[in-house]
């Protein structure tokens, strides 16, 4: 593929360059040969040899020659070569990533359409390293005209330009999965979609033209389908099926944990069916779009906004184009910046944006609105934890929203303690706590150690809450910690969305959430310990006071009734005292 494109484009470029200047065909290659044959390789001209010495004409030609070779690179080409950036590093991960992208898309679509989601995931092995992944939802379906672009074009989507919480963000995932499938098996992506019972279902086979980053429709026909509405996507790919912690099944279980309103039917490659039922029959609160919050809008972005705003005055620019900027705050910003409220935004963009930026950052502005976020909620986290984990203590907290770089976000923490491991006794060799991470209800399975959540969990002093914890490690014991970050924009450390970047604001919120549930865990453990203490106290009194009596009798040669009296009095005195000491 590469050589062909190169050839084709070199020709085109030559034609284009020809309009600039005439010259020999392929001069660089010819020159390379000469160099290899005769002189020492590459020893052409030192800087001192260059200059005003008649080689100028040639000199200019070089720049022109080089110009011919410059051309645009399509984003699909880029990601084909850099597929590891998208989570297609190896066949194992590719299989899971494909399922994940399709599931994310389906859930987002269902929730946008206010449909309680029901997903069917079907994995079939059709060759030694080849799988067919089919994901079907009961969502709203996709309008016929949009199908090719949604599945056949990278960086095409509805979420990127909105400030609103969603699973998908940048319109890469499902197209990239299709592209990977096509690259490794040559097979197109197969889509069936129906937007309502009165409309026919449409079946598509779509390939991606990576040179143009554009869909190529192989097949497009009406088809019979028994679902009244929904979408089914089928991708064939080179993959490897894996069991255990990073398996498709474990991934879907975590999806069910963070999405208690979803019902999942899964058929694994061995034909086993698994049903993950709902823990709740309600849709999450619908997240709303918001305008950007002034904090964290960088200078360059601010200038761009000033230039392209529809507002005619600085003050109305501030109130209309940002969230949480009312008249009073806008006035304060203008005053701090020393700018007139009626100044023209485009003039400020050129000359005084720096001042404005500083004024914004030194003015106290309310946190962004929170209805752009859709938390799972403490109640549902508890329900989901109880459904999936056997423990003796459950706790959850849903923090108030906060902001990093102008993006609102919110942290939720769930915790389950006890269960079979705890019953086994206070062994010193407790296993490490298990940590389950979510971003916008999507489980994060890889790169745990690189994630801000993990760092915050490790950085929390769990000993203060009654747990064992080695330096630089997760706490140990029969503990499951679940952390969910909901945000209009989750800052992943890579496009494969595996770990959250270490923003201090995010770390802080996670820590506060952990401390919240940690304190409650401590209260629970203290209560347990107090009960144990009271029992111990009673036992101590029964065990040891008689020996005090006996010793005093021996030393002082007391009589039996005197000894008994000593023990009786001591028992009463100690039982009265509330504490152990």
């Amino acid at each position, binding site marked *: 593929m590469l050589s062909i494109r190169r050839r084709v484009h070199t020709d085109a470029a030559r034609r284009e360059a020809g309009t600039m200047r005439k010259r020999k065909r392929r001069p660089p290659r010819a020159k390379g040969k000469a160099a290899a044959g005769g002189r020492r390789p590459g020893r052409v001209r030192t800087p001192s040899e260059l200059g005003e010495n008649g080689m100028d004409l040639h000199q200019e030609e070089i720049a022109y020659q080089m110009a011919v070779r410059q051309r645009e690179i399509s984003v699909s080409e880029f990601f084909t070569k850099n597929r590891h950036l998208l989570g297609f590093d190896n066949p194992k991960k590719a299989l899971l990533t494909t399922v994940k992208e399709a599931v994310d898309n389906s859930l987002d679509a269902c929730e946008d359409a206010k449909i309680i989601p029901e997903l069917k995931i079907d994995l079939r092995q059709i060759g030694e390293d080849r799988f067919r992944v089919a994901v079907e939802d009961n969502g709203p379906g996709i309008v016929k005209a949009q199908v090719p672009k949604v599945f056949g074009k990278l960086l095409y989507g509805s979420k990127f330009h909105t400030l609103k919480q969603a699973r998908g963000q940048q319109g890469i995932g499902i197209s990239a999965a299709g592209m990977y499938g096509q690259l490794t098996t040559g097979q197109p992506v197969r889509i069936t979609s129906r937007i309502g019972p009165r409309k026919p279902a449409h079946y598509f086979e779509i390939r991606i033209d990576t040179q143009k980053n554009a869909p190529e429709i192989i097949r497009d026909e009406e088809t019979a389908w028994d679902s009244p509405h929904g979408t089914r996507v089928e991708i064939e790919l080179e993959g490897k099926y894996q069991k255990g912690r990073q398996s498709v099944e474990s991934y879907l279980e975590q999806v069910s944990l963070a999405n208690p309103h979803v019902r999942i039917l899964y058929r694994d490659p061995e034909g086993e069916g698994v049903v993950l039922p709902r823990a709740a029959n309600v849709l999450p609160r619908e997240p709303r779009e918001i305008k950007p919050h002034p904090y964290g809008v960088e200078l360059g972005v601010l200038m761009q906004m000033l230039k392209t705003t529809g507002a005619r005055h600085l003050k109305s620019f501030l109130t209309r184009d940002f969230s949480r900027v009312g008249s009073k705050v806008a006035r304060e910003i203008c005053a701090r910046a020393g700018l007139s409220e009626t100044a023209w935004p485009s003039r400020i963009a050129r000359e005084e944006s720096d001042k404005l930026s500083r004024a914004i950052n030194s003015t106290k502005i309310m946190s962004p609105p929170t209805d752009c976020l859709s938390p799972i909620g403490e109640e549902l986290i508890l329900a989901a934890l109880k459904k999936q984990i056997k423990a003796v203590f459950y706790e959850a907290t849903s923090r108030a929203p906060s902001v990093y770089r102008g993006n609102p976000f919110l942290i939720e923490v769930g915790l389950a303690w006890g269960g079979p491991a705890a019953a086994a006794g206070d062994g010193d060799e407790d296993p490490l706590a298990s940590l389950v991470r979510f971003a916008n209800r999507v489980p994060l399975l890889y790169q745990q150690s690189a994630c801000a959540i993990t760092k915050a969990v490790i950085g929390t002093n769990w000993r203060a809450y009654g747990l064992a914890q080695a330096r630089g490690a997760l706490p140990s014991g029969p503990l499951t910690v679940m952390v969910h970050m909901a945000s209009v924009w989750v800052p992943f450390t890579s496009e494969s969305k595996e770990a959250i970047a270490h923003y201090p604001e995010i770390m802080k919120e996670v820590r506060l959430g952990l401390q919240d549930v940690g304190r409650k865990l401590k209260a629970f453990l203290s209560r347990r310990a107090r009960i144990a203490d009271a029992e111990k106290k009673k036992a*101590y*009194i029964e065990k*040891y006071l008689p020996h*005090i009596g006996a010793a005093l009798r*021996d*030393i002082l040669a007391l009589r039996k009734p005197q000894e008994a009296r000593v023990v009786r009095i001591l028992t009463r*005195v100690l039982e009265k005292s509330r*504490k152990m*000491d």
Partner: protein
Amino acid sequence: MGKRRKGARGTEAKIRGEAGSIYRTILRRRKPSLSLPIRSLDNVRYNPKVGYFEIGRKRKERTLTVNTAKTFAQSLKMMSLSIDLLRGDDIATKREAYYVSKNWGDARFDEQTESDAVMDDVEALFEVNREQLGFIPEEKGGEVAGRLTVIDRDPDTGRALKIDCTRFGSGAYSIPISVEDLGFRTNASFILAIETAGMFQRLVKHNFWKKANCILVSMGGVPTRACRRFIRRLADERKIPVYAFVDGDPYGITNIYRTLKVGSGNAAHINKFFCVPQARYLGVTPQDIIEFKLKDATHPLKEVDIKRARDALSNDPFIMRELAWQQAIEQMIEMGVRVEQQAFAKHDLNYVIDVYLPKKLRNPEKFLP
């Protein structure tokens, strides 16, 4: 059994007094408590008047509560055991006392460290030494040869036994664990306390005690309580000086010699019994390395030696009182080497007998304090 040990009645009375006070407190329906001196280094000071480490005034109250009930019961049981030993004129090693507790039901000790700690508490409480309570340490230690007759008694008959330490040949008299009841007869000029068994054997083999008219005591490293108490009682009763002959290194000075002379920091409550304030340091001194040309038989100070030396300079209350010692230790650090008693063998195996000791003993007033 023979006649009762000296002072046994006094100790018994002390224990009964304490128990009676506890008993009365209980009858008043109040929580009884034991007042124990704190046995840690920051409650210790060097008293140059008496010449040993003394325990300070800090005390902790062990009040009877649910949490302390077990230890409190064990302290009383230990006091009761001591009374039994004193009445029966018997002894028990620390390990035996631990095993006796196995009969105490729930109040039994699970580890000997626990019973040792309670024993230390009782010892501190009554300001007597463990031996006076009837408890003896596990370790023996210390051999004696030379111009000394020890007077002991036959345990059955109580008859005096005279033990002539000049008559052991290459062997020696082994100091018993408890030396409280021994008597002494001697006209020796001094006691020479020797660090190593090897050096002791050389001096015995060559009848050094005969020439020098002295008593040789082998300490075998840091002297045990019995060894220190033996030297102390002997020196006190017969009014003879004690000279220490140990390795010239920070361990020999700050552990072996310092423990012999002023006692140990963490046993300050009993140091008054277990130290030899009249001891003086014969050698080997850093200056001896120069005077006796031992340079090529020295060893470089290790990290741990230097650390020990510096610690002594800045923390040891005894060293901090004695300018001469500070100078000697600083000289050693500067020279960067340590020297052992055996180093004299470099010149000749008997150089130590023929040259070193006679020369040093000519000027005992020059010995380090």
